[in-house]
């Protein structure tokens, strides 16, 4: 069963990377903390840790609810919508930090600086939001994970699936090497801000849509 889950993750890892790239790439380009391959690898690990947390949470839920996918699908939209909205706020504040005179309003600048002092939150939160999202490989894994019948079985299935998908993230820290060009850091932060707008819109529509169907 573990091998099956791992292979399922391996066959779908590219899709996971595609769905996660919009957050990871701008953050690595813009820089979260110190520069260097070691630091960027830690960023990716934090992101993956957030994803794992999301997967484990759903591993538990998959066991608790058994085959009640309709109920889970109904809960998914508002929960992920909220996560996306929180993520969009973090992305917007991340885009505003690390620059002088970022905003004319002093309160926004102060808040941005406070959030910017804890850049570790961003990758983890982004990973959690990605992990909770029902991307296609995740749906497939969800169905398969409902089969074992025990809590440990479901969680183990998801963890094995997670390891399989995570192998595709190994080259990602190298994106951070582009940061040696100052212009790339600026572009990365701006792109993170734009992605924040995208996640704000997506989160809001998911939240409104999900609340309507509940």
């Amino acid at each position, binding site marked *: 069963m573990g091998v099956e889950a791992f292979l399922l993750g391996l066959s779908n890892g590219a899709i996971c990377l*595609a769905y996660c790239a919009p957050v990871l790439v701008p953050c690595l380009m813009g820089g979260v903390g110190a520069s260097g391959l070691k630091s960027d690898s830690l960023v990716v690990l934090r992101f993956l840790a957030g994803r794992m947390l999301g997967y484990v949470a759903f591993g538990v839920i998959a066991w608790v609810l058994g085959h009640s996918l309709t109920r889970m699908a109904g809960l998914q939209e508002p929960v992920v919508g909220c996560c996306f909205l929180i993520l969009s706020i973090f992305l917007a504040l991340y885009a505003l930090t690390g620059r002088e005179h970022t905003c004319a309003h002093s309160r926004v600048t102060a808040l941005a600086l406070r959030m910017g002092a804890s850049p570790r939150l961003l990758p983890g939160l982004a990973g959690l939001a990605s992990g909770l999202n029902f991307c296609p490989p995740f749906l497939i894994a969800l169905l398969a994970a409902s089969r074992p019948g025990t809590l440990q079985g479901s969680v183990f299935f998801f963890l094995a699936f997670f390891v399989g998908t995570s192998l595709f993230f190994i080259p990602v820290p190298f994106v951070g090497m582009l940061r040696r060009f100052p212009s790339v850091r*600026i572009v990365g932060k701006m792109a993170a801000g734009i992605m924040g707008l*995208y996640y704000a819109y997506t989160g809001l529509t998911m939240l409104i849509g999900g609340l309507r169907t509940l």
Partner: protein
Amino acid sequence: MKRTLRSFLLSLPMLLLTALMLTGGSIPREPSRLAALILTYLFFNTFFFLMLHKGRTDRYRAVLFVTYSVAFVIAFVSHLVEARGSMALTEANMIEGETPFCHVVIPMTLIPAALTKTIIFPGSITGTHASIAGMFVLWIGASLALGRGFCGWACFFGGLEDGFSRLLKKPLIKGIRPSWSYLPYAVLLAVVLIAAISLSPTYCMWLCPFKTVTEYVQVTSVKIAIQTAIFLSLFLGLVIVLPILTRRRTQCSFLCPFGAFQSFTNKVNAFDIRIDPDRCVKCGLCTKSCPTFSIDEASIKKGTTRLSCMKCGKCVDTCPKGAIAYHVKGTQLSRGILPRMLFLYPAFLFMSIMAGRQIQDAIVRIIRLVTTGSMI
């Protein structure tokens, strides 16, 4: 006299080439089409002659470029109204592949095309006006010949901003932070990533301000209404108001992801703009005049322009010491006319062919409007 003769002789090849390309090998018989052809031919070649004779590039390029954009809008919108009855694009038009392909969407199509062998645009691959394959070929040719010079000489949208940016004699808004010029690259990164995961042309759907003067999706939902409000606001702000107030091409400088993408083709282009450090007196006039913020202190020190340079020639014309010039890569910096001529020929030729068709069509429609009361 000698100079006039020299300019005329240097213009001769362009006279022949434009005659060949604008006629397509046959002279139209219909009086309005013939008149349009003659007017367009004379218009382009007169300005090319002036460019060579006066030694100024941007002043004459701008007149042609603005005329091109206005003519494009007239011709494109008239064509749409003839074909569909309105500028609005319906979902049925998209299903039937009737949407003309625009160059701005090219960067967004590349990742999905590489991975799925499909183009995420509701057009036709071949066989229609502005087909996908046809526009890709145009883009490849422009990139090889002009690099980001495409934005200064061939983009049918750029002339609108160029025109508005010249209305005032002095800018009312100055001192724009240079880091804003990185925003198009961020927009490029964001729209490319989102387009790849959503398999839809994000920039076209949500941001493109030029839908205001071409075609737009029929408003049938709240989402489309929001998209419409966004593109109208961006057109008003970045294409009309800010260019007037700043005397810069603000849509190109702060938003256009295609321009950002096209900047990278400057690396593989034969031409660039060079600044002679011995002649430069650091007056900063070039920095203030550049429409796309492509010259700054750092680039002047390096003796060149930034990657975003669209080779419009404004800095070349503005420099009081003649320190800035067109340059052919791999060659020595030269004050002679050869590098400029070698650039002007492909650039002007590209513009005259792209613009020539639109201007002729617009003239025919204007004649039709005057004589019959309708452009269609």
